[in-house]
């Protein structure tokens, strides 16, 4: 009897999870039908809130400030979208891969992803993207004493990257040519601190965060930058065209009325590139 009870409990737990998933998928279809109508109003996963998935910490795009609030360039831009929808922004910290693979949207964990996500073909298959809102390049972080200024100086060395990023792809694509080993870290601070600790010889990541780290840690410098023609976009579920058009509209008007430049200057200290 006891065993049967346990079995029943296990089965019901499993089934509840399954039905939970099923409910989500049914509400997806509801969202898409709204999106298909002429007056698009995006269905939000939580009423009255624009729930945004991000991956902390990625200064200055998204990180916690001294008071513990998540702030940054991405946060300010998504605030504009939330304002347009007449709701407030709610930020969820989640694994980067869950955002880029679209799993976070499929599971209704959030409406949009704002995590300095580089738009690329693979990711475009899994999620929809807004228009580009930032141009990034990859930068090489090295110890100041090493004097490394390009990848050819890293033969036989170890280069750290952040998992599931375009920097990782770039590093791996060039590893055979330059003869270095790629070491995958879970986040940027781990790889950057490994450079500082001397356990790896260099780290590759987007220029924004790398410059920020070398500024805080003068023992490290940016050896060089690689032009990779990358643009960041905000992502959402592939069928969420309603939200996509809202975000695009907000970005376009922010760029034309100067709001974008104000936000850009606030976080990067310089005017936005024309």
């Amino acid at each position: 009897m006891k065993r049967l009870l346990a079995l029943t409990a296990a089965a019901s737990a499993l089934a509840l999870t399954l039905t939970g998933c099923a409910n989500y998928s049914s509400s997806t279809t509801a969202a898409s039908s709204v999106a298909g109508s002429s007056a698009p109003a995006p269905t939000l996963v939580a009423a009255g809130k624009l729930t945004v998935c991000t991956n902390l910490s990625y200064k200055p795009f998204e990180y916690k400030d001294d008071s513990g609030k998540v702030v940054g360039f991405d946060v300010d831009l998504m605030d504009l979208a939330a304002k347009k929808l007449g709701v407030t922004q709610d930020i969820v910290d989640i694994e980067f891969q869950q955002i880029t693979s679209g799993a976070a949207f499929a599971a209704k964990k959030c409406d949009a992803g704002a995590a300095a996500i580089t738009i690329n073909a693979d990711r475009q298959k899994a999620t929809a993207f807004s228009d580009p809102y930032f141009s990034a390049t990859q930068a090489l972080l090295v110890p100041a004493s090493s004097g490394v200024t390009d990848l050819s100086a890293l033969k036989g060395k170890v280069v750290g990257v952040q998992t599931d990023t375009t920097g990782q792809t770039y590093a791996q694509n060039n590893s055979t040519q330059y003869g270095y080993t790629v070491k995958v870290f879970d986040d940027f601070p781990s790889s950057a601190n490994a450079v500082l600790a001397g356990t790896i010889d260099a780290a590759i990541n987007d220029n924004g965060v790398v410059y920020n780290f070398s500024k805080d840690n003068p023992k490290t410098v940016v050896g060089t930058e690689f032009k990779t023609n990358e643009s960041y976009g905000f992502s959402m579920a592939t069928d969420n065209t309603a939200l996509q058009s809202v975000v695009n509209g907000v970005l376009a008007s922010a760029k034309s009325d100067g709001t974008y430049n104000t936000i850009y200057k606030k976080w990067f200290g310089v005017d936005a590139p024309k």
Partner: protein
Amino acid sequence: MSAITVEGVRPKKKTSPRKRAQRIRFVQYGVLALVVLLAVLFVDGRQVSSAFFRLDLIEKTLTQGLPLAFLNTLAMTGGAFVVGLVLGTVLALMRLSQVAPYRWLSMIYIEFFRGLPALIVLMGFSLVSLAFPGLRIPLDPYGTVWLGLGLVSSAYIAETIRAGIQAVPKGQVEAARSLGMPSGMATRRIVLPQAFRIVTPPLTNELVALTKDSSLVYVIGLTATSFDLTKYGRAMSNTYSNMTPLVIAGATYLLITLPLTFLVRRMEARGARAK
């Protein structure tokens, strides 16, 4: 005394215990059937198979490096368990030592490492060179994993072994001592072998837990040849934007843990019979 019956209130009809048990059983079967029915009704079968069980990706996962990842997980777990076992035994003996400072040190160590998340300990060991420039833990990344996870598990293992030692009847030591064995020899030859027999099932459980904890090594930074199962599955899941490789990696853990838990059950059953 005669029974007082209030008018209008009929004495409750008594159901026999057997009937009641039967009724409860029916309810349970009913709940089970309902839950299964709901699951079948609402599950999106095509999405489940395309998101979690894509055939071409199952094949890719199995052939592209799963064996290596499997070996890495085994090596990381095995090494950490050896470190944990050796250190745990020493700590257990210290915990039961006559010398008070040994007892305190051991207790502080155990409480410290039992209270810390393994993930944070691993991160700490991966960045130990920040504190001691020039210091490198050998056999990167295995050395770091063995130390980090080994230190954490030694705290748990120490408590298990201490319980095992204390479960050995006092008469055993007394008999050994009365035969003229020095106390060190009695511990080594009489107490510890019996203690280890007692704690083999819980230690195997600790090994199972350690196998799963080895999935945390992604935080220390891994090169492609040292990917463990979880990291391998995650990396591949990301490459194909599909969860299938992660499902396969997860299933591979069961190849390690299921035989172990089966073994534990066998040993426990045998132990129960012996009593």
